């Protein structure tokens, strides 16, 4: 029948099969309804502990995870890099081992170094959900983007989805590229040459530096924020010039399909990548993305918690688990 979830961790969409991605999206669709109830809570993860470990500033992702955890009745604990033992010189592995010793079930983790959650996942028992690692991946963001596309367009296969802006530093774009290409979408990346990854062609995507051409053919465009905090050197002459070439305003939108979706992982720099009218306009599904983020994260927490529990049972008695049910 359908695929069963067997992974302890969600580290990136690069590792997942098409069926696994579809399972998460299908599960997320069922979880959406919970957030529309007067009592927005189900008892599914009662008694489980989830740690949100953010070594990097985050407001929306952390809030979204925390709401998802609470709506599943998990106990949650928040750590941030600043003000914790990390600042006193503790290594990542020691921090991880300490979290493990607290007997938690799942760790949601954001880290400035690419691959940090992968490394920790090999050494500790709790399941790890990557909430963004350096410039590598941000799988739950890509999943919520895909859920939004599926909801608005009815499908993902055959859609043309474009990512515009700082692709080089964008884990959101990277996760989306892995996921969307697996689900049969056509992906185009667009931005200043200096902000496009050199390995772009090997990722199976189209590359363009002309937004007017891209917007003409796209079904959805995700605008990416210029991440000044990740840029040590100037990648383009000025913000004003960038906005003119790679920002979307009403004028540029005239070239687009009538049902183009404008997406953004947030936070928006209004007047740079998006004008006010476009960000608030009828094409924008930016706030639907935020709502879908909760359902996607609930789905991931639900699916992973099954695997964690199973492993624990096997520690005690591998036979007992399969008999009697």
């Amino acid at each position, binding site marked *: 029948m359908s695929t069963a979830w067997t992974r302890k961790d969600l580290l990136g969409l690069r590792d997942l099969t098409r069926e696994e991605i579809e399972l998460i999206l299908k599960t997320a669709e*069922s*979880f959406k*309804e919970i957030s529309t109830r007067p009592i927005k809570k*189900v008892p599914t993860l009662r008694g489980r502990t989830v740690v949100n470990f953010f070594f990097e500033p985050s407001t929306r992702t952390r809030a979204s995870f925390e709401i998802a955890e609470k709506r599943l009745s998990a106990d949650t604990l928040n750590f941030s890099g600043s003000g914790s033992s990390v600042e006193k010189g503790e290594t990542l592995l020691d921090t991880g081992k300490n979290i493990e010793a607290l007997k938690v079930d799942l760790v949601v983790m954001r880290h400035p170094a690419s691959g940090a959650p992968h490394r920790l996942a090999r050494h500790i028992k709790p399941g790890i959900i990557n909430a963004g690692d350096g410039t590598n991946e941000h799988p739950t963001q890509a999943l919520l983007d895909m859920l939004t596309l599926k909801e608005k367009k009815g499908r993902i296969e055959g859609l043309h989805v474009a990512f515009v802006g700082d692709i080089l530093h964008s884990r959101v774009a990277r996760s989306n590229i892995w996921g969307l290409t697996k689900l049969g979408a056509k992906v185009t990346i667009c931005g200043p040459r200096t902000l496009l990854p050199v390995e772009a062609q090997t990722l199976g995507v189209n590359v363009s530096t002309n937004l007017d051409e891209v917007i003409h053919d796209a079904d959805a465009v995700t605008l990416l924020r210029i991440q000044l905090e990740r840029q040590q050197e100037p990648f383009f002459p000025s913000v004003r010039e960038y906005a003119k070439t790679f920002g979307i305003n009403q004028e540029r939108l005239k070239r687009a399909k009538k049902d183009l979706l404008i997406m953004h992982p947030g936070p928006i720099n209004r007047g740079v990548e998006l004008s006010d009218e476009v960000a608030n306009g009828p094409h924008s599904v930016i706030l639907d993305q935020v709502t879908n983020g909760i359902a996607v994260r609930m789905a991931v927490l*639900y699916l992973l918690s099954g*695997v964690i529990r*199973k492993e624990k049972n096997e520690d005690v008695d591998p036979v007992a688990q399969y008999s009697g049910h």
Partner: protein
Amino acid sequence: MKLGVSRAIFLPRIGRPMSAEEKKVLDQEGMDRALVRIAHEILERNKGAEHFALVGIRTRGALLAKRFQSIIQEIEHQTIPLGVLDITLYRDDLTEIGAQPQVHGTEIDFDLNGKIVVLVDDVLFTGRTIRCALDAIIDYGRPKSIQLAALIDRGHRELPIRADYVGKNIPTSAGEEVVVRLTESDNRDEVVVRRKTA
């Protein structure tokens, strides 16, 4: 593992394949009659179709609830609000079973507050599913009361739960299972009892 080996040796000796042993306990006509009778009982007890709603438990309880809705439509010319309940997220055995079961979602798009809710399921067995369903329904509001309709009551209750409306009581042993087949999902209407396969 051990069990599997001994069973393989044991079976050929008594000479009957396990899967073929199905005893039909309710055919299509019997099922129709039971459903019509229950619909009348629901109407009688609740004094007409004004005040109650039907909520079916996925998958076959939901299909049966839909049938009740159309039977009552024929009798009373009124459309009863109909909801579908997925109890997966409320199960008390999630910590015991393997990979997470697929969640299909709940669809209750009317206000439960103050209504009489008739909960519908195909087979009433341990009562644990109904316990989950009661928790789930109460998360949607505060119904005036909740009643339970089951096509089959097979006994072996593990919780203090009973049905208000029963299609047929079927005494079973713990080693048996009751299979309800409905045209909508299984291409025919029947209820069979057979030895548990797994």
